[in-house]
């Protein structure tokens, strides 16, 4: 079975500066991957390249064994969704209107169908957005807006979810809820790559970790392997230690 996503030797240069070099990895069905790395490691850049939002300077990205360039934008949008790190805060749209935009690639006509509306309601219920479905996005708090954007991604019903820091602005309960949702999506067979800085969230929920450092993939292993040999923590900071939490779960502490 071909991997859903195959990234081979992808590079990205901004002017003379090289941001990504020779990035390669594959992602199969049902994987929940944490993409990590320090600030400026190129995580967001890699996400937008994989999402087809910008062409790589070199290398190839295949989805379902087909180069991203060969996908029409609408076809790609029915398969791949991208949650941006942030959208502008003063959006004039109501929350439900933003979520409904996830249905645009599915709806052929000028108006959406009952199916589309049902998908919107389901997505908003799952992300706990019903209380503010009619409010303008500009009046929402950062965390509420983040949940609306996540709902928009779920409503898109993609097979590959690319989420750039989905848990930013979320309170702790909502962070856990967010990653639980992602796990639900992967249990249905979707593949999910989430950028996060939270090592505990990553080790608890994700099946696999990919760490970018020095412009390329510095670590690519399953969460179990990462727990077994924690030297990789040095990629983030020399002050981190891996312990077993009181309940047996992983617990990264710092000095």
């Amino acid at each position: 079975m071909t991997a859903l996503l195959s990234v081979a030797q992808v590079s990205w240069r901004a002017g003379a500066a090289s941001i990504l070099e020779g990035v390669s990895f594959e992602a199969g069905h049902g994987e929940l991957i944490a993409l990590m790395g320090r600030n400026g490691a190129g995580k967001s850049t890699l996400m937008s390249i994989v999402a087809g939002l910008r062409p790589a300077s070199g290398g190839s990205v295949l989805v379902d064994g087909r180069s991203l360039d060969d996908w029409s934008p609408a076809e790609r949008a029915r398969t791949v969704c991208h949650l941006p790190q942030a959208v502008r805060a003063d959006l004039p749209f109501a929350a439900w209107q933003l979520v409904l935009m996830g249905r645009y690639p599915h709806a052929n006509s000028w108006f959406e169908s009952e199916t589309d509306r049902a998908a919107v309601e389901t997505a908003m219920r799952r992300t706990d957005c019903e209380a503010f479905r009619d409010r303008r996005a500009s009046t929402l708090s950062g965390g509420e807006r983040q949940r609306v954007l996540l709902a928009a991604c779920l409503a898109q019903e993609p097979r590959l979810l690319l989420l750039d820091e989905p848990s930013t602005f979320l309170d702790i309960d909502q962070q856990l809820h967010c990653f639980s949702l992602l796990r639900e999506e992967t249990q249905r067979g979707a593949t999910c790559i989430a950028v996060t800085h939270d090592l505990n969230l990553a080790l608890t929920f994700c099946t696999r970790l990919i760490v970018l450092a020095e412009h390329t993939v510095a670590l690519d292993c399953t969460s179990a392997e990462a727990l077994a040999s924690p030297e990789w923590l040095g990629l983030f900071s020399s002050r981190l230690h891996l312990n077993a939490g009181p309940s047996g779960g992983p617990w990264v502490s710092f000095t």
Partner: protein
Amino acid sequence: MNAGPNARAWLVGSALAFAAGAVLFPLAGPAPLDYGALLARREPEWSILVQLRVSRTLLGLFAGGALSLAGSLFQAMLREALATPYTLGVSSGASLGAVIVIAMGGHTFLGVPAIWSGALAGAAAVLFLVVGSAARQGQMSAFGLLLTGIATNSVCSAAILLIHGFASMAQSFSIARWLLGSVDAIGYGALVPFVALVALISAWVLRQARHWNLLAVGEDWASARGARVSRLMLGGYAAGSVLAASTVALTGPIGFVGLIVPHVARSRVGADHRVLMPCSFLMGGVLLAGCDALGRSILAPAEVPAGAIMALVGGPYLVWLVRQRG
């Protein structure tokens, strides 16, 4: 997006206002019309109504609609409430073209008044310049368009000032008069192609309404939801420019309608462009044609240009609206 009852009411309401304007505004004007004479199609009443007032009202309705639609289109593409054909330099390009022609004393060119050709040529020049410089970098970015527009504006205004300074007294007066912006009597020979062009381009713009929704959130957001962003931005910029330029060619620079109408419409009907754009078009048309009807009635037989009325009424209203929010 399922239009709520509110949105539907605004759509129907503005369509009714547009239709009512088309019927009622021609009745306003310096010479009172005898309705009995009109019904009997007696001259000169019938000619005044059909040749002067009806064509002029239609020009106002479609010019106002085109400018408002172009305004809401640019505002969606650039995610900037201040984006209008003016801020993007298209209108000043058209104005410069027209002013050059006035200063040269041209009258007709290829059968159409020379001012129109000048305005269209000026707008086209700006269009190619801006699109050319943006396209060379491989993509149309909102920021690049806005910046190029602002630069174009300064250059064109400076050039207009320069020409104004060198022009003779009479030419200087007609330049100043043209720059005020007004809806004037127009022959059907020019009106029909204008209306057809506006209708055609507006139809294309409205067909893309969902894409403008996506672009109003962000370019990456749109691209991730199936829009071909570069192509859309190019098409949208060209469509908005042609709408604005063909209007400026006929009316002179009437700036305000493209700013105020989309702003008011957005605050009333919401941001879904499937409702916002038709409402903007219809309300913009009614506003401009209404200002023109008012302008030719209040100081009759003298005429106040529609652009001046629009600024006098619209300026304070916009400030009031902003203060209400703040």
